[in-house]
């Protein structure tokens, strides 16, 4: 038993913060009173996850635990509690499709289906070229622009199967698709602006 985990530990590359992240980590810790550095565990785990290619290896968790002088199990508890900390390796682009009620009503099944087909992977899997990992997530708080998905730090909203394919193709080609609404509306303003002349308010906002 111990041998198995030990092997796991040894296989994972060691983790230490880059100079940049080390400074960022110290800045975060400085926000908390002396001796309360454990409060910084969540931002530090996020820093580590970003540096580590989108997931937290045991080595990274142990590094954070030692860095904050916390028992390892306490950091492990935090990392397993929040779904946004990934405990398995992910592809370069982590595609997270919202399938909660508003997005579902607006067609998230089709969005997720398009992702599956276009990437050739099922939910929870990573593509063979290690570019994409597909996840189904709970509400990301952009219901007004449903359906939506998150890739990396960016939200892609007002999606249709076609726009999803375009975004994924662009990413695969190494491009950076424009985040936000894919039908060109600004922020979450009504899809059709009210016409001051007629007084109509743009109808029910159907796309």
């Amino acid at each position, binding site marked *: 038993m*111990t041998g198995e*985990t*030990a092997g*796991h*530990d*040894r296989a994972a590359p060691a983790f230490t913060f880059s100079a940049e992240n080390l400074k960022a980590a110290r800045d975060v810790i400085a926000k908390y009173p002396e001796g309360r550095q454990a409060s910084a565990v969540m931002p530090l785990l996020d820093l580590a996850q970003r540096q580590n290619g989108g997931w937290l290896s*045991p080595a990274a968790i142990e590094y954070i635990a030692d860095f904050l002088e916390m028992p390892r*199990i306490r950091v492990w508890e935090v990392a397993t*509690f929040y779904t946004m900390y990934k405990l398995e390796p992910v592809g370069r682009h982590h595609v997270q499709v919202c399938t909660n009620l508003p997005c579902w009503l607006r067609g998230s099944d089709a969005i997720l289906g398009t992702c599956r087909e276009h990437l050739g992977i099922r939910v929870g899997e990573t593509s063979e070229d290690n570019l994409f990992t597909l996840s189904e997530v709970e509400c990301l708080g952009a219901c007004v622009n449903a359906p939506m998905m998150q890739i990396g730090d960016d939200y892609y909203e007002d999606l249709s199967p076609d726009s999803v394919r375009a975004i994924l193709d662009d990413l695969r080609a190494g491009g950076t698709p424009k985040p936000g609404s894919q039908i060109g509306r600004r922020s979450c303003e009504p899809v059709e602006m009210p016409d001051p002349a007629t007084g109509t308010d743009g109808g029910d906002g159907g796309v």
Partner: protein
Amino acid sequence: MPKLTIDGHEVEVDPGLTVLQACELQGIEIPRFCYHERLSIAGNCRMCLVAMKGSPKPIASCAMPVAEGMVIETDTPQVHKMRKGVMEFLLINHPLDCPICDQGGECDLQDQAMAYGFDRSRYHENKRAVEDKYMGPLIKTIMTRCIHCTRCIRFASEVAGVPELGATGRGEHMEITTYLEHAMTSELSGNVIDLCPVGALTSRPYAFVARPWELRKTETIDVMDALGSNIRVDSRGSEVLRVLPRINDDVNEEWISDKTRFACDGLRRQRLDRPYVRRQGRLQPANWDEAFAAIAERVNGTEGSRIAAIVGDLACAESMAALKDLMEALGAPHIDCRQDGAYLEGEPRSSYLFNSTIAGIEAADACLLIGSNPRVEAPVLNARLRKRYLAGGFAVGLIGEPADLSYPYDHVGTTAGDLGRILAGAHPFAERLRGAERPMLVLGMGALVGRDGAAVLAAARRLAEDVGMIDPAKPWNGFNVLHTAAARVGGLDLGLLPGAQGRDVRGILDGAATGAIDVVFLLGADEIDMARLGQAFVIYQGHTGDAGASRADVILPGAAYTEKDALYVNTEGRCQAALRAVHPPGEAREDWAILRALSDVLGKTLPYDSIRELRARMAEDCPWMGAVDSVVAARWGGFGREGPLGDEPLRSTIDNFYLTNPVCRASVTMAECVAARAGLADDRTGTDG
């Protein structure tokens, strides 16, 4: 004091109590799973719900402090309905495997389901299943049964001081585990088995062995360390199947160490169940008459000055008293109960006691540990030190090898010389001690086994006097000796020390090696260097075949601590009575009776025919042995011998917590613990390097 109404009765209770505690004081039992009086409050099982007037929702009584004018109802149909609801939720994901569960018959969930359970389930979906976790060789886990009370997590973090257990995931996916499933590295880990209110954490060695109602329960005393933990021995037929703690707030609260709990399988192995006599160089089975005759042949005609006796760590007070009387009758002054060679004097009694008492630790506000690692020498006492540390305002200093004690300390020094420097005031910790209201020191055997033991003892005494550890006005005596052997204090009380011109352990071994000692009687002494016994005729009286028995010329099979009515005096001088749980195996006999019979054969018949007469004789010299379970404050006096303090590092005398006496060395479970710890150590060097 707040006044509140509980079930129509107006009561007045101390402020700071919880509603649950107030109810308990009224004799009202509140069902609970997560609440435990020695752990912090979690309030997550919701079983203790009661109704409070003015609150539209029920309150968790374990987490609600009492307040003036509260009106609490604990026994209304509404409260019953709420508890039934909680129970139904708990049972949704709890497997119905009571028939194959080791907790069956002593399970809180089972018991409370009798009162609040529903006789069928309304839940038709699949129950949740959780993978079992590895927590080491002592704890068996069936995690599907876990109801997430978090008692084990709180015990590990708070009492044991090893924050290794935790809850991963959340909601339905919450699971209790150790980090990457490493074994728990605590000497107190077995207590989570008692704390677990369901069958999620059970005893691995005891798995599928017996049901609680099959067992005969004997309330007795533990001898694995010098604490004298109060235990209950569960036996069936002639076998001790398990050991559980009893509550004694003055000694062990309700914890016991893993050695106390799990070494009992050693009582079934390597047992000496008949006398043996060495003939033509080989130990041959014999009967009692032959064994006694072999001894008589050798002892009769040998001068008393050529006979010696060494007492081991597990001897009971009765056998030691009988041995002393026998040696006196033989005119043999060479007798010693300090087989590790620690320098201890027989007078005054305060020079070798844990004078502050164990419970007294909680009154202390500064502590200096000298040559002691209480975590391995007495884990339950260490938990008390940790409890005091957690209460705040407790400065701990250590002179000796650094070790993880589960609380922070100031590493004052490593050698006895550093004790001298503290005495001279050359270290700031001296000021801490001096400024403390009730300072204490803990003098371990590690500080006294060196050549400078007498000087260390004297220096510790002087330090205690200098910094105000001895204050009869308070009254307070913070001079504490932490023994590692259950027999030691009883032996010192009864005067099992070299008489005039007598040799101590070192002298006896030197004498045996050079031929000045012809006969050595070992009363369960296994931790001496047998090679130095030379050509001496060795009589070994004990219960387990270990180093002493394999060197012996005659073996007299005695009784282990679970097999005799016996007195033990713990490190604080508390005399406690052990009771017989099972009979000694085969032809083995109670130890005092063996010595009494031997005295008869040697023509020096001891003047007592029953254990009552023997105890009466012991109580003449040591009145506290007539008053079981009480601590008498010991008179202070001069002791020790001033001298140069050495530069050798002070190390605890215990190298391996799991292998300190013949019983635990015979235990398979203890061997597994050693292997698990060794595995962890390998792992560390692999990943931490």
